[in-house]
């Protein structure tokens, strides 16, 4: 780092990683496109970037893509919001009240470690194939990262700050508002990154099971009718959304809590 400050690196050196990464991505798609010139693949089983791009343009033009995305987004956000509303307070109380922590920690660990997605068929049948069924699956899968990270965050709170607030006459509520919540926030944001990944799984599970619209439904339907170009298009869209969400949260973490960089 110190050397960098003295000798200003050239453009190529500074952006080496991004340039090489971008180059690799372009190379990948170019090779994918080019391989069809040499190997006659069955178009029923594989598609090529030019066709995928055309398929995506079609989906965007007809409005189907945005319709499906909007349909999937509703349970995604409802489920996540419910997970925050339930998970964060629960985790904070578990961290702040040792006995609540003792009582609930093993239980939550077991739930978190078990493949709760196995309950999806039951939840779909019980809550229906619409928004509520999917939202419940999203909630069940994404609540635990919030609980565990809020819990860990409270346990990492600086005892000195607590004593300062107490000795200045602060009550329980002041402690939560002035000390605990601000120091737990970075942990919650880190937890939300994990939760978002699990919520995406939940939406897809819900829509693969039984749905008549939504991006997960679109992917499995295009697979069923061998519309590989559109299927790949939707898969790439899901990948892009997943990357934007998780990397976006990572970026927000670095920007908002720079002292935690690298954790």
């Amino acid at each position, binding site marked *: 780092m110190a050397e960098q400050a003295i000798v200003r690196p050239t453009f190529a050196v500074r952006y*080496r*990683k991004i340039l*090489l*990464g*971008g*180059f*690799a*991505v372009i190379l*990948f798609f170019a090779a994918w496109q080019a391989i069809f010139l040499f190997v006659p693949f069955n178009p029923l*089983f594989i598609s090529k970037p030019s066709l995928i791009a055309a398929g995506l343009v079609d989906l965007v033009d007809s409005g189907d893509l945005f319709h499906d995305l909007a349909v999937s987004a509703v349970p995604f956000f409802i489920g996540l919001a419910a997970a925050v509303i339930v998970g964060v307070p629960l985790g904070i109380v578990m961290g702040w009240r040792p*006995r609540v922590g*003792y*009582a*609930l*920690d*093993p*239980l939550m660990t*077991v739930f978190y*470690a*078990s*493949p*709760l*997605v*196995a*309950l*999806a*068929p*039951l939840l779909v*049948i*019980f809550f229906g194939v619409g928004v509520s069924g999917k939202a419940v699956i999203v909630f069940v899968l994404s609540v635990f990262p919030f609980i565990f990270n809020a819990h860990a965050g409270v*346990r990492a709170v600086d005892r000195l700050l607590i004593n300062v607030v107490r000795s200045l006459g602060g009550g329980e509520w002041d402690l939560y508002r002035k000390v605990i919540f601000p120091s737990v926030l970075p942990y919650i944001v880190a937890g939300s990154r994990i939760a978002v*990944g699990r919520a*995406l*799984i939940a939406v*897809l*599970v819900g829509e*693969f*099971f039984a749905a008549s619209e939504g991006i*997960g439904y679109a*992917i*499995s339907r*295009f*697979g*069923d009718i*061998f519309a*590989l170009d559109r*299927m*790949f298009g939707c*898969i790439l869209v*899901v*990948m892009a959304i*997943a*990357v934007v*969400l*998780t*990397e976006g949260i990572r970026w927000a973490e670095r920007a908002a809590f720079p002292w935690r960089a690298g*954790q």
Partner: protein
Amino acid sequence: MAETQTLDARVAALGGAGAAPRRSLWRRIEPAAWGAGSFVVLLLVWQFVPYFVPLKPGTRLFFTVPSRVAATLWQMIVSGSLWAPLGVSATAFATGLAIAIVVGLPLGILIGRSSLLNAMFDPFITAFNATPRLVFLPLLMLWLGIGLWSKVAIVFIGALFPLLINTYEGVRAADKLLINVVRSFGANEWDIARLVVVPNALPFIVVGLRLAIGRAVLGVVVSEFFGSQEGLGVVMVRAASGFQVDVVFAGLIVFAGLSLLMTGLVKLLEDRMTRWRPGHVNAQ
């Protein structure tokens, strides 16, 4: 936490032999007692809900109690109806995880040692790691058919990335000084890997393995829900659509139990390997 406990112990020791030992025993078992108590309370409440809450007939169809789940599980074990599907699921799990280890470790070491490969692979690793692997299931079913190999593929891509990323982090964390020392004694890249990089990365790899096991179990369950004819996941889906809720829970318990058992064993290994390092692994 550790500090306050030793402090308490010291205070107890200073306080004499009176009430102190009893109190410290309670202190030691208190977390476990609360933990066990909450399990018991949960099970009791669940068991006795139907006696206190009048369930509608529609809801009753979806309801079961712990005793019935336990009886069903026991019956599945005794009658042998559990083992065949479990064997199918376990085969997919083990094959996928094994391939992920065979591919992930060398690739992780390569990417960790070469900054060129690192830069070129990074966008792909980031993209695949962020994406729920489930999104590839319909495609994999088209390519590999409904059966073992599409499941293996889902398990593989689920388990690969935790292993790959942790191996790579472990390799990157290797002491540069040690590498330079062996290199100046004439070691080639293979020796460096064998003597410095791999031993150093091992604790990271074990953490990766633990995460990979969790992802692999998830992969088996999910792929059996959608693209399979046999396996424990299939048994569960069929039971769910036949309203045999106790079978669904029994399957969940089996999956959860095996998952906890395996991650627990790896965790023991992990603690063993990291006990001697002061500031140990915290990857992912």
